[in-house]
């Protein structure tokens, strides 16, 4: 008898434990379905989960906008899930693995293809074609793959421009940059703006590269470093299909030589110089660099520290080509969302991009270029009175904007490419050798995923 009893106890404990576990995870889904069943009004009640990564003051605004959306769509109830950036994506990947992903989530633009190509994102092509007039929005095409399918809709756009510190230019007696500048013009001006501990500029014979206290241009990693230079020199990392490396090209060599020369002369920050800062983002807002290649969000830090600055379009390459890097942070609908939930999630996305009020309120935060062109072109964005004055430069840059060759293995090829070119930046290897090795390693990463080797 006692045998039966004790095994039963263990069984109870297991059952209890399982109950606790299931209560933790699946509560919302159960409720939602029940709501749907009990509802007898014409429109079915749907509850969706929405995930987004936190960015300070923006969280509150996001919640406000979601409340407004719920008011406008009484049949849809939104439950939010958010976390700081890196935890958010870790958690999201785990949720997708466990089948508990949010129905719609905000993805960093560079991760859209990671989810799309691995089958976690829903194909939005039909909805976009049906409900959105593509002419009215910036950046829809940045989430389009080579087959013409759309996988996400931009939430806000980050696009690169050249930031310059007016006070430093005035002090050095250098003309402000304009839209005729080439990268060589930038370097020439940068040399006059680079100062060592004794206030010698980079053109002076007594200039000491080891004691630079003010850099001409702060240069970091891919978006605000090598990608815009490589592309405007006619080079790049991946081919149009985004499945093959085109690293080892004469155009890239020319661009790399331009960069390495700038670093050797102390005009551009090299990776070791950046190590001295709390963050690789700080040289410009802390007024240790006269210029930066910056995406739109960088205006926040510059405005916060009160730098006297403005922006213009990025310089041209030697043959007049331009390139402005774009990261379109976007809404993705989960492939595993049920039809009703996916439809409700689409209502949210549509609400986000089409409603002027939403677009305006979000634009007021000043974190991103609004997706809706009419709002971006309005005074609210361009003439907000906040620095930088020439916000039009960001909008003009859409004419020659492109993504960062974003594909499913983006993080991985960026790392191997970055590791190799950094060695050239630090003078540990030649440009030729760095590009040759980067070419092989990038191709290996691509082959492993796309050709399953």
């Amino acid at each position, binding site marked *: 008898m*006692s*045998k039966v009893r*004790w095994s039963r*106890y*263990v069984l109870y*404990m*297991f059952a209890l*434990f399982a109950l606790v576990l299931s209560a933790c995870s699946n509560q919302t889904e159960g409720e939602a379905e029940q709501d749907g069943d009990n509802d007898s009004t014409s429109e079915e009640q749907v509850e969706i989960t929405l995930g987004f990564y936190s960015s300070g003051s923006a969280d509150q605004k996001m919640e406000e906008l979601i409340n407004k959306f719920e008011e406008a769509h009484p049949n849809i109830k939104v439950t939010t899930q958010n976390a700081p950036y*890196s935890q958010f994506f*870790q958690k999201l*990947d*785990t949720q*997708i*693995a466990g089948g508990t992903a949010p129905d719609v989530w905000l993805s960093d633009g560079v991760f859209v293809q*990671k*989810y799309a190509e*691995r*089958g*976690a994102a829903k194909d939005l092509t039909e909805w976009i074609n049906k409900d959105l007039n593509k002419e009215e929005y910036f950046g829809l095409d940045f989430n389009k793959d080579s087959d013409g399918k759309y996988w996400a809709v931009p939430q806000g756009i980050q696009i690169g421009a050249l930031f310059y510190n007016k006070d430093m230019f005035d002090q050095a007696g250098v003309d402000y940059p304009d839209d005729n500048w080439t990268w060589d013009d930038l370097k020439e001006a940068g040399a006059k703006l680079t100062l060592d501990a004794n206030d010698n500029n980079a053109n002076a014979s007594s200039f000491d590269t*080891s004691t630079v206290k003010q850099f001409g241009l702060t240069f970091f*990693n891919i978006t605000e470093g090598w990608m815009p230079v490589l592309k405007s020199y006619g080079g790049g990392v991946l081919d149009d299909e985004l499945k093959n490396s085109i690293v080892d090209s004469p155009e890239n060599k020319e661009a790399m030589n331009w960069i390495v020369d700038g670093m050797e002369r102390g005009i551009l920050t090299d*990776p*070791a110089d*950046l*190590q*001295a800062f*709390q*963050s*690789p*983002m700080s040289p410009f807002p802390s007024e240790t660099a006269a210029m930066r290649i910056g995406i739109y969000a960088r205006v926040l830090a510059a405005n916060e520290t009160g730098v006297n600055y403005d922006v213009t379009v990025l310089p041209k390459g030697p043959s007049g080509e331009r390139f402005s890097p774009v990261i379109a942070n976007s809404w993705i609908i989960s492939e595993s969302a049920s039809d009703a939930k996916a439809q409700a999630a689409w209502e949210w996305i549509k609400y986000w991009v089409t409603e002027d009020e939403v677009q305006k309120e979000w634009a007021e935060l000043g974190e991103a270029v609004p997706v809706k062109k009419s709002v971006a072109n309005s005074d609210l964005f361009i003439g907000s009175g906040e620095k930088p004055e020439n916000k039009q430069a960001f909008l003009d840059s859409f004419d020659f904007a492109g993504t960062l060759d974003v594909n499913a*293995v983006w*993080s*991985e090829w*960026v*790392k191997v490419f*970055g*590791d190799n070119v*950094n*060695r050239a930046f*630090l003078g*540990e290897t030649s440009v030729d050798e760095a590009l040759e090795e980067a070419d092989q390693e990038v191709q290996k990463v691509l082959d492993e995923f796309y050709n399953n080797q």
Partner: protein
Amino acid sequence: MANPSKIEHNKPTQVTEPKNKKRLTHEGKWGLIMISPYLIHFVVFIAFTLIASFYFSLSKYDMLNAPEFIGIGNYTKLVNDQVFWQALGNTVYFTVLFVPAQTILALILAVALNQQLKGLKLFRMAHFIPVISSWTVVLYVADAIFNPRFGLANTILSKIGMSQQQWLNDEMLVIPVLVVVAVWKGIGYMMVIFLAGLQNVPEDLYEAAEIEGAGVLKKFRHVTIPLISGTTFLVLVLSTITTFQAFEQIYVMTGNGGDITAAGGPNNSSMVLMLYLFQQGFAFLKMGYASAIAWVLFIILFIITLIQVKLQNKWVHYEK
């Protein structure tokens, strides 16, 4: 046999054991029930995950799709993966520098703080503060010292006429710098373990040694060291395991402000196994490959601990 229940009550084993040795006693069953919360935890969160991770290590698994069995593919790939070998080498290098340095310094510190001094508690506390600080806080302290432009270390070097160093950005120096910071952070904890060991050494043994004419060094060598060898062994095993699992420090100190793909630099010179595992698994979604790294790490740690346990017979004395 007239009153079996009484017999069972007094000597339960006599009744049950002869019939079936595997059968549990009444107390045994209750014991099992009492530990069942832990048992369930063990089965669900440890045993199951262990088996799952072993299966993943034999699969191609990107987390977003179901794992696909590929046999030992991940392990053969590991053998040919240069960065993996580099990470293993760096991990061993880190351990070889860190474990002896931390053990010896913690012992010296513990001996020094085991004296009857005024303000002793303050000193002990001071050494324990880094232990309870988070790595992010430690990063700022370390940066104040090793920042290539504004750091104390380079200021001192230039004052005495030596050339300035890049520290964390120098492929040769990055691991030694990380070790120095890790020792600084971890030493207080090991010191406390040593202090506990030192306080268990009977005072009369020192007195006896003194009567025999032993000096300070001889007392330390022949009384202290043998009597705290059990503690030293514990410290060695703990330190080895923590260095093999080092992750947070390197992530925070080399990751360019939280960028996991930048961590382990420059040029993978501070890439260690745990960091490589995390990067492959969570940043590049190669969970199968990451699981294979985890199993290799487990086997290495298992062997090292086994060797340490075997060797302890030669030098560790436990009080009888």
